[in-house]
């Protein structure tokens, strides 16, 4: 059990570092989602189920959705900006 936990913790660090150094934002967000999921599993290992559910629903769920929507919104503004100069 302890080994499994160490592997997960190592995975956490790898995710955290790779979020910093990936070029494309979308992959960064996906890695961040996986970071939250690993954290959720660690909560279960640390015998605190309340936190696991909350982290799953709030951390992995809503935060990642918000990140995706922000990225979508930015892509929409960038696309609209490219259309405008053409018509303008």
């Amino acid at each position, binding site marked *: 059990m302890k080994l499994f936990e160490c592997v997960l913790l190592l995975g956490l660090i790898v995710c955290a570092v790779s979020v910093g150094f990936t070029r494309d934002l979308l992959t960064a967000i996906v890695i961040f989602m996986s970071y939250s999921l690993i954290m959720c599993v660690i909560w279960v290992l640390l015998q*605190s*189920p*309340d936190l*696991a*559910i*909350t982290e*799953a*629903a*709030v951390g992995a*769920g*809503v935060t990642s*959705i*918000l990140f995706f*929507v*922000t990225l*979508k*919104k930015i892509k*929409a503004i960038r696309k*609209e900006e490219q259309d405008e100069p053409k018509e303008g």
Partner: protein
Amino acid sequence: MSRRKDNYETSRWRQFMQWLAGEIDPLTAAKVGMIQEKAETLPDEKMERGKVSTLQATPGNESDEREAHSAAAQAEKAAGQAKSAMAAEPWLNQPSGESRGLRLYRRFYQVMSILLCMGIISVLLWTIAYLPIFGNAGNPDNNEVSARYIEKGLDETGAVNMVTGMILDYRAFDTFGESCVLFIASCCVLVLLRIDNDGGSESWKKRQTEANDRIFEPKNDIILQKCACVLVPVILVFGIYIILNGHLSPGGGFSGGAVLGSGLILYLNAFGFQKAERIFNGKIYQRITVSALTFYCLAKSYSFFTGANHLNSGIPLGTPGNILSSGLILPLNICVGLVVACTMYAFYTLFRKGGM
């Protein structure tokens, strides 16, 4: 004799002499002198701050015990980090034309960030070495406080799940502040992203971008709709279960609310805004949030007031184990669940479309 400096006219010494002689008005002239100075003072001001941080180091290693070093190291780290924080600002003043300075500066920026990261991690790891061992029963934080929560938790709060009991009864003021954090965050996002159509060309343009947003929405994507038909009811039931059983099994207001929220978001994504607005629009959102928070506020102030003035609050705790037990905790869980669900849903719609 010394060659006269080429820019003698604009040199500050001459302006100073003029000021002394009282010919020029120091207000306007001061501006001319200042602008040249600005570029020079900023770099040397950074060296000056460097001196300040080294200044702190000297009192540190005067007394050679180890903790003095850690304080100085810590202050060094803070000053180092401050230098980089400040580094962002002066770099702006130099026109970006000087590419050489820029490149040198960016490398300095990189080195500084790695150094700072290593510094903070090393200080914190060094402190961990002196902290109590992970997981052994004798740790200082396993003291009479948690013992009472466990032993008397059931009969004082009636909650089987001690964590919820602690959150909503023993340390209720934190959670009360907590829901206010969520409320103020939703107000801020409302300020930023809500588009009000109270006339004016500017809001028409916003309405136009909103229509543009619908283009991205998958129109009646059959696969998504079919999955949603299966998934959404399950998610909503699961969310309601978590909220209602907050005081019996793990979960509670926050997590249940988030699950409900994501269920609503899935429904919105699958069936589009028209259908979602039929059951859940701006007005309902506002009413639910305000009524839930008001009930929460009144219930909690009642229990604080009675507690502080040693009156016994006549709320029955019920028999532990079944749903209608543990006094106020159930209704509070429901309120928090509703608030969190509505806020998560509102976040999503505001981000997507700037309005319910």
